[in-house]
């Protein structure tokens, strides 16, 4: 692959920080012209941020960029576009009630009069669609297009601008295998024509199939940078998931008891009718921790919201605390708590805490109507503070100051506080989403210990995490989700990172592959 | 020192309040003494203004406009030692002089002139707020028009039912235009600040208009046929000189109302028009013509 030309993209020592999160840390990235370069990494590893920096969407805190050997200051997307960079963003950048054509038109108008501009661009698009086989109904409002077609539209948008350097951030996440193959065909021809392509994906098979070289990121840093020829899916899965520390599992295995929660054939479709949770059935038994592994965006979040009553499915039924719920009358958070089901949501900033409340007010959210905290319509401030202090001590929340604004606690301490609150109610069923996202090691171990304690006290715990080693460290039973369905389920004893990595990446298990 | 409290619309409404203002100014020039005045910004302020004047020992205190009636009554009760005057309303208290005008008499005369000047035989009336006082204008106007030309058609419209109707030139203009469309070629506006819009419309459409309260002939020379002047200035001046408790009604005889003749409308007023008007004035003063006062029976013969 080594080409005489200078590298198309050369990023050096890129740093990017969001508030307290270090999204990119001293990242180097070199991509020879006319090659396809893959970037993989766990959720939050910093892939999109890095690409957004290259595209001028975010300004890096430090580091410099050279395009085709020329040092370049990319202050805005305009500069990037001028430098021949095009990007397909991870999250759709479309106006729903514009026609597909107008969406492509925006910012790339060949003429200041729309009718002419449309005509001119339509011609080019038709040619491009014919050539690439990426079909999009140009006159439909985007709102009426299925997700796959929107993704194709995004790709056309980038291509029609004639980008010499094309960034694709998880373009295949919502494409069918056939569509994906089509896309890859296009990308290959582009490569032949000399276009340089950066591809972000969670599907390792795609890397192997298409890329010349691959960079693996973790926690904002580059952990591996190699030619695809010299690596393998398993090696990548290893590097991606990594082993931060060995959060050793505790010795004694669980003795699952009666089923405390049983869900059958849950199906939830989004506004576009796409099933995000697809016929999922599962049971949680007393005294076990069930882990749900999977790349985020494969339906785990929605499943969690269904089970906690934040969302009602179109199909399926749920048994909890001797009651049965069906789409007509679904569970709601208040009832759930009454039935001793507690929920630590994924997004603690938006849901679990009221950031502007002092800790002692956030610490009763959801239980504020319980007699412990509310008598004759009035809040019992003293009781609330005492309870909060107790929670903070019990879960080692720092600083142990109930008066501090919830916002001011670090991510990990916020998480500990939420966990403490949900444990306070002594639930029988505990649903936990991303227990340790953005949390440092010390906090992680503490949190894991608490979850195990809850299990050993006879509770049923469901943990959803996009960090595999966490699932492996915690769960007694592992469920892997992919594309809204249950891709596999097995006791943790029979799990190894490679198998799970493959299941998550949507490849069958090794056996299946060999068979 | 005397004091005057103008009503909503302000002392520069080119009409009612402005007349009062001129009276006060004249008093100031002739006596060389100063006076206090205040323009209220909203209903809530009326009482505060009055009391404020009273507290500063102002005496007498003149309230301009019927809407000050209840306030004057309140304040006069609270300050029995001070003298008050109220214009256009009756407050029955020993220390209050209530000054009324026989607007119907003046309106009668301008009504005549309107009918005489009209070529289409249709004359219009635009009132401000729909209240008995304004109907009084309208009724006198209609009687005068009929007196001059029995076949004349009188179209009347009121601007509104709330005080806003006193200061809405745009509406006034629209009302006038509507009447012009129906063939009216002389319009009398008894509508305070709203009148300005009426006169403007008349000018734009090349019709004649009649002013009210102050002599407004100068506003649109060539368009203003005349003005039904209501000598509020005289009333204020006299009140400043000294308040005579009780009700006093000023008509043609007392020189309280009249038609304005000056260089601005000289060209518009023909000699025989003038002659007829002077005759009618004499007859009214002599009682040979009885002009019906709408407010007397809350009804108009026409």
């Amino acid at each position, binding site marked *: 692959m080594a080409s005489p030309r200078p590298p198309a993209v050369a990023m050096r020592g890129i740093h990017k920080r969001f*508030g*307290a999160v270090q999204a990119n840390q001293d990242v180097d990235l070199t991509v020879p012209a006319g090659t396809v370069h893959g970037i993989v990494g766990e959720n939050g590893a910093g892939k999109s941020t890095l690409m957004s920096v290259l595209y001028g969407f975010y300004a890096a805190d430090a580091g410099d960029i050279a395009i085709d050997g020329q040092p370049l200051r990319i202050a805005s997307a305009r500069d990037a576009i001028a430098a021949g960079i095009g990007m397909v963003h991870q999250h759709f950048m479309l106006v729903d009630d514009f026609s597909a054509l107008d969406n492509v038109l925006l910012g790339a108008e060949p003429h200041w009069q729309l009718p002419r501009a449309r005509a001119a661009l339509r011609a080019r698009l038709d040619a491009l669609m014919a050539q690439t086989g990426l079909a999009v109904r140009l006159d439909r409002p985007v709102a009426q297009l299925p997700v796959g077609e929107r993704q194709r539209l995004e790709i056309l948008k980038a291509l029609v601008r004639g980008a010499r350097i094309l960034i694709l951030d998880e373009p295949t996440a919502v494409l069918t295998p056939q569509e994906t193959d089509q896309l890859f065909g296009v990308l290959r021809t582009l490569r032949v024509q000399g276009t340089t392509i950066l591809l972000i994906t969670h599907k390792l098979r795609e890397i192997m199939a298409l890329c010349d070289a691959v960079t693996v990121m973790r926690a904002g840093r580059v952990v591996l940078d190699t030619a695809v020829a010299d690596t393998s899916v398993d090696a990548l899965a290893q590097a991606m998931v990594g082993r931060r520390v060995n959060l050793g599992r505790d010795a004694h295995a669980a003795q699952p008891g009666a089923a405390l929660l049983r869900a059958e054939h849950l199906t939830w479709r989004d506004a576009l009718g796409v099933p995000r949770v697809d016929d999922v059935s599962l049971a949680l038994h007393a005294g076990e921790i069930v882990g749900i592994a999977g790349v985020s965006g494969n339906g785990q979040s929605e499943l969690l919201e269904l089970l906690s009553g*934040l969302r009602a499915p179109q199909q399926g039924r749920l048994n909890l605390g001797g009651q049965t719920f069906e789409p007509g009358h679904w569970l*709601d*958070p*208040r009832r759930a*708590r009454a039935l001793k089901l507690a*929920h630590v*949501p994924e*997004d603690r900033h*938006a*849901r*679990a*805490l*009221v*950031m*502007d*409340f002092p800790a002692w*007010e956030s610490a009763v*959210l*959801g239980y*504020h*109507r319980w007699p412990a905290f*509310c008598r004759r*319509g*009035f*809040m019992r*401030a003293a009781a609330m503070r005492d309870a909060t202090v107790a929670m903070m001590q019990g879960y080692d929340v*720092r600083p142990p100051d109930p008066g501090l604004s919830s*916002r001011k*606690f*670090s991510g*990990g*301490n916020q998480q500990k506080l939420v966990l403490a609150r949900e444990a306070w109610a002594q639930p029988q069923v505990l649903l936990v989403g991303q227990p340790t996202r953005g949390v*440092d090691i010390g906090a992680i171990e503490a949190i894991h210990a608490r979850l195990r304690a809850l299990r050993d006290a006879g509770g049923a715990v469901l943990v959803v995490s996009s960090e595999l080693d966490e699932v492996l460290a915690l769960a007694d039973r592992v469920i892997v989700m992919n594309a809204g369905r249950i891709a596999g389920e097995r006791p943790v004893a029979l799990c190894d990172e490679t198998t799970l990595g493959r299941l998550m990446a949507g490849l069958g298990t090794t056996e299946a592959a060999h068979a | 020192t005397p004091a005057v409290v103008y009503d909503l619309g302000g002392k520069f409404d080119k009409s009612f309040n402005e007349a009062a203002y001129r009276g006060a100014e004249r008093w100031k020039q002739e006596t060389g003494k100063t006076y*206090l005045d*205040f*323009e209220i*910004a*909203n*209903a*809530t*302020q009326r*009482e*505060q203004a009055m*009391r*404020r004047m009273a*507290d500063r020992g102002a005496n007498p205190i003149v309230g301009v406009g*019927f*809407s000050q*009636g*209840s306030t004057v009554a309140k304040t006069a009760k609270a300050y029995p030692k001070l003298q008050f005057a109220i214009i256009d*309303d009756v407050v029955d208290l020993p220390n209050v002089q209530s000054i009324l005008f026989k607007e119907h008499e003046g309106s009668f005369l301008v009504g005549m002139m309107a009918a005489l000047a009209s070529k289409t035989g249709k004359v219009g009336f635009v009132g401000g*707020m729909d*209240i*008995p*006082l304004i109907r009084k204008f309208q009724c006198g106007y209609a009687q005068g028009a009929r007196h001059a030309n029995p076949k004349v058609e009188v179209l009347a419209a009121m601007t509104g*039912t*709330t*005080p806003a109707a006193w200061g809405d030139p745009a509406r006034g203009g629209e009302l006038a235009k509507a009447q012009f469309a129906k063939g009216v070629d002389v319009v009398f506006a008894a509508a305070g600040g709203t009148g300005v819009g009426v006169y403007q419309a008349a000018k734009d459409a090349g019709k004649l208009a009649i002013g009210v309260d102050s002599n407004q002939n100068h506003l649109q020379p060539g368009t203003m046929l005349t003005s039904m002047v209501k000598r509020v200035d005289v009333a204020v001046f006299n009140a400043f000189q000294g308040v005579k408790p009780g009700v006093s009604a000023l008509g043609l005889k007392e020189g309280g109302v009249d038609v304005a003749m000056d260089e601005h409308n000289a060209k518009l007023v023909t000699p025989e028009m003038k002659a007829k008007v002077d005759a009618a004035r004499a007859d009214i003063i002599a009682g040979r013509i009885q002009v019906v006062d709408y407010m007397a029976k809350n009804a108009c013969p026409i």
Partner: protein
Amino acid sequence: MHDGDALPRWMDLLLLPLINLTLAMAVAGLVVWGVGQDPWQVLTLLVQGAFGSRSGIGYTLYYATTFVFTGLAVAVAVHGGLFNIGAEGQALMGGLGAGLVALWWSDALPAPLMLPLMVLAAMAFGAAWAAVPGALQAWRGSHVVITTIMFNFIASALLAWLMVNVLKEPGNMTVESRAFADSALMPGVHVLLGALGVDWPATPLNLSLLLAVAAAVLVWLYLWKSGAGYALRTVGFSPSAALYGGIAPAGGIVSAMALSGALAGLVGVNEIAGVHGRLLLDFVAGAGFAGIAVALIGRNHPLGVWAAALLFGALYQGGAEIAFEVPGFSRDMVFMLQGLIVLFAGALSHLAAPWLLRLLRMARPREVAHG
């Protein structure tokens, strides 16, 4: 949202509003100076007029009472995440409510029954007039800002129609209802003080003042001590967290608006029962919009609202006084200042924050801990 770089509480709650206020004052001062008046003289006159005499103080407190009601109204809505521009119309309706019961029963009922009845009626009417937009927002998603504006106009039209066609006293040319019987008149403070042997000049200041104090205390209790208040503030800060906590945002929105409207409605008591003793058209006179500025300056806290209301009461009273003293000066100066305050304390509220932070950093460098 700027996370780490937040100002210390006292700066945020005290210094910033003061700075914004000063900025507004400064700009207003420029205008005053520009039109050839001496800003300093105007300011001194303003202060004297507001606090220089006992009657001045009386008027100041009377205006403040009204602004406390509208200020609290806006503030309560804000805590529910709503921007209620409708206090003006809600106050009108409150006055209508108070007026109607007074016209119907003031001859029959004694004051101890009549006055509470009027207060309740005022609150009920105001609440109803605000609850409708609230409900439309909660269940139909129609933006409460727009609907409340519309309701202001509808309210004034409705009142005008009622006054002209139904309530207007026959014979009287002014558009005002007949005077209520004495039982419907909120006792003036000077009367009570007189009864206690204290001689106090007659001002419109009436017992509604106590109502305003009570309202502030109750609002404080409601917002920060009651379960309903807890739910309301949760909805206001984060609807998604409210859902998670089993709080239905819709209910919070409607109740917030209703309470807001009830508070605004109390303006009717201060003006109609307290001062005029009869129903008239334009007794709110912009107090509803002033409430927005009051709430912004008062940082939506009852205590702050009271402080800001006093400030505005002083501005209105002082402004009126200036109109007496300085020829060619009108109280519109105060309306302008009011607008500028909304500008600097509302839209540009954090104009000064970066500077303050820099000063702070210089004062004590790098201290933001890292967990």
